[in-house]
């Protein structure tokens, strides 16, 4: 929203791979992004292709749908963030299906947008994600709040949210921008971003705990004799 006019110095460096199984969408998004001065270096139509092309091109951002043939969006994100940790993944989903979106964020996506967003919103989100910002839409913030609430109710003693993080997440859920939150809480915009990033990190850490617990339960942590 703050950068509706493409900023050449910033956008010059941004390279993107667009992943979507619907060719019409792929073309549309690509055209929109290029019009905003963002370079689409490759297009993929399924999860497997997305992984391959990402490892080949190492773009700044992978913009991907979650409903994909062959390898699912979530699995592709897991692969990408594991093998190319500096590549940011921005999820662009039509349904905003909660389980999928939350799962995508847990395995490493740094943002999520609905496909109904405008071309400017999408381009803006790509730039922010490329800068290393986490792009939390209000519904995603609400989802994350629910998730931490569920965890707290279980009382498993896993890292929860600090009161400040809670407050910030709530404001994001209400639709406040980072700038507005910063003004309201008398902190810098950078601090707001850090908080959001920490929330994301906690979510991803929880996922890792979950997998670890699962592995221990199944005895997968022991190497075969």
């Amino acid at each position, binding site marked *: 929203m703050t950068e509706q006019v493409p900023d050449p110095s910033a956008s010059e460096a941004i390279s993107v791979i667009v992943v979507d199984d*619907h060719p*019409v*969408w792929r073309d*549309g998004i690509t055209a929109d992004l290029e019009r905003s001065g963002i370079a689409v270096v490759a297009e993929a139509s399924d999860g497997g292709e997305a992984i391959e092309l990402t490892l080949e091109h190492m773009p700044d951002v992978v913009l991907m749908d979650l*409903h994909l043939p062959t390898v699912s969006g979530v699995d592709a994100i897991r692969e990408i963030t594991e093998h190319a940790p500096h590549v940011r993944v921005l999820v662009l989903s*039509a*349904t*905003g*299906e*909660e389980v999928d979106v939350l799962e995508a964020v847990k395995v490493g996506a740094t943002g999520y947008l*609905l*496909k*109904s967003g*405008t*071309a400017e919103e999408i381009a803006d989100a790509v730039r922010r994600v490329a800068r290393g910002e986490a792009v939390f839409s*209000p*519904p995603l*913030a*609400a*989802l994350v*709040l*629910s998730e931490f*609430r569920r965890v707290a*109710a279980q009382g498993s003693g896993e890292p929860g949210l600090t009161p400040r993080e809670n407050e910030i997440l*709530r404001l994001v*859920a*209400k*639709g406040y921008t980072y700038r507005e939150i910063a003004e309201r809480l008398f902190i810098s915009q950078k601090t707001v971003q850090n908080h959001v990033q920490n929330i994301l990190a906690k979510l991803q850490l929880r996922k890792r705990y979950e997998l670890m617990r699962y592995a221990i339960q199944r005895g997968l942590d022991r190497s075969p004799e």
Partner: protein
Amino acid sequence: MALSVSRRAARDVEPGMQGLWFGVLVFRWASYAWMTALAILTREDLRAPGVAFGSIVVIGVWSLWFSVTRGWQRPLVLWIDLTLAAALLLVSGLVMQEGTAGEGAPFFATSYPATAALSVGAAVGIGGGIAAGVLLSLALVISRPLNGLPLVDLTPDQWASLVNGAVYYLTAGGAAGAVSRVLARSAAERTQAIEDAARERERAARLAEREALGREIHDSVLQSLALVAKRGTEMTSRPSVPAGEVRELVELSARQEQELRALLNEPHGEPPPGTVPLRTALQAAAFGVDTVPVTVSTADPAWIPASDVGELTGAVHQALENAAEHASATKVLIFAEQTDGAVVITIRDDGAGFVYDEGALERQGKMGMLRSMKGRIEGIGGTMLVHSAPGAGTEVEFRLPVQVGLG
């Protein structure tokens, strides 16, 4: 699939009953062997050795046939078995030295007759087992006069021995019946449990399949709607296109997309009795607000009493109309959560905003809608707060005390 599972369950049942029948047969043959051995050892004392050994042979042949053909599966065979056992009791009275039955001397039939009570009990159940026990007890009683001991002349000790025998037969029949009932019931329960599990698995698989299919369809419908909205918006800027008509189409598809997405993302979990998921109520309130996109999100779980839904959705709907019509907002966000015994609903728009001064608004005649919203919320025990400033949008906050547990 369910069929093959239940058949396996039926086979699993067998070991229990098979064990019971094996025990009954072992008892039958052990008591038969003992009876034969005893008859041979005491052959000097028998009044009618021919009858005695004749009946031993008959019982032996019968038992062999009974064991080999699994005679207990047929009621008629069970009746014959029981009759033979009773007859053996009568024969005992006849073949033993006169006046020795129940007098400490080994009884000719030994405990063999109990095997008939066991068989009936195991095959028919407790009632049948006890009935068989009663019949055998009667035969035992009659065996006394046949042995030359009129019932009226029996000593207390002889009576005690008689009762002892009767109790023995009754217990054998009843116990076998009880065991077989327990086995049958647990087998039936297990079969039921296995069938239920199989059915549940099938149901879950079917449901998952349908859901996957649904997701696929929904995804492409939503994609198409979003695409129509997007391309339509671009078209409206071209000179040769009737912008107004296209704009209408765009709005229609955008609205459909929103409503379908809202339906798809119904909150999970079972609401406490008498409550409605907060998100469902808010989505209902957003239906029919056509000119501005409304995003509803909630931190779940959050429920509100069903009795408050009407007033709450009414108030929210008015807030949305306000934003759409008077504030000319381009989007509205609803966020709701349940914290510390209250449900808090925030409705935020990016519209013109205004100075919230009730007196001034009253004079301008703009207080009507606000007062109506406030009245609805206060009517169900809540409060309304409005934050707004010209150019800064409007935020309406409804706060409702709610006694519904978070689960």
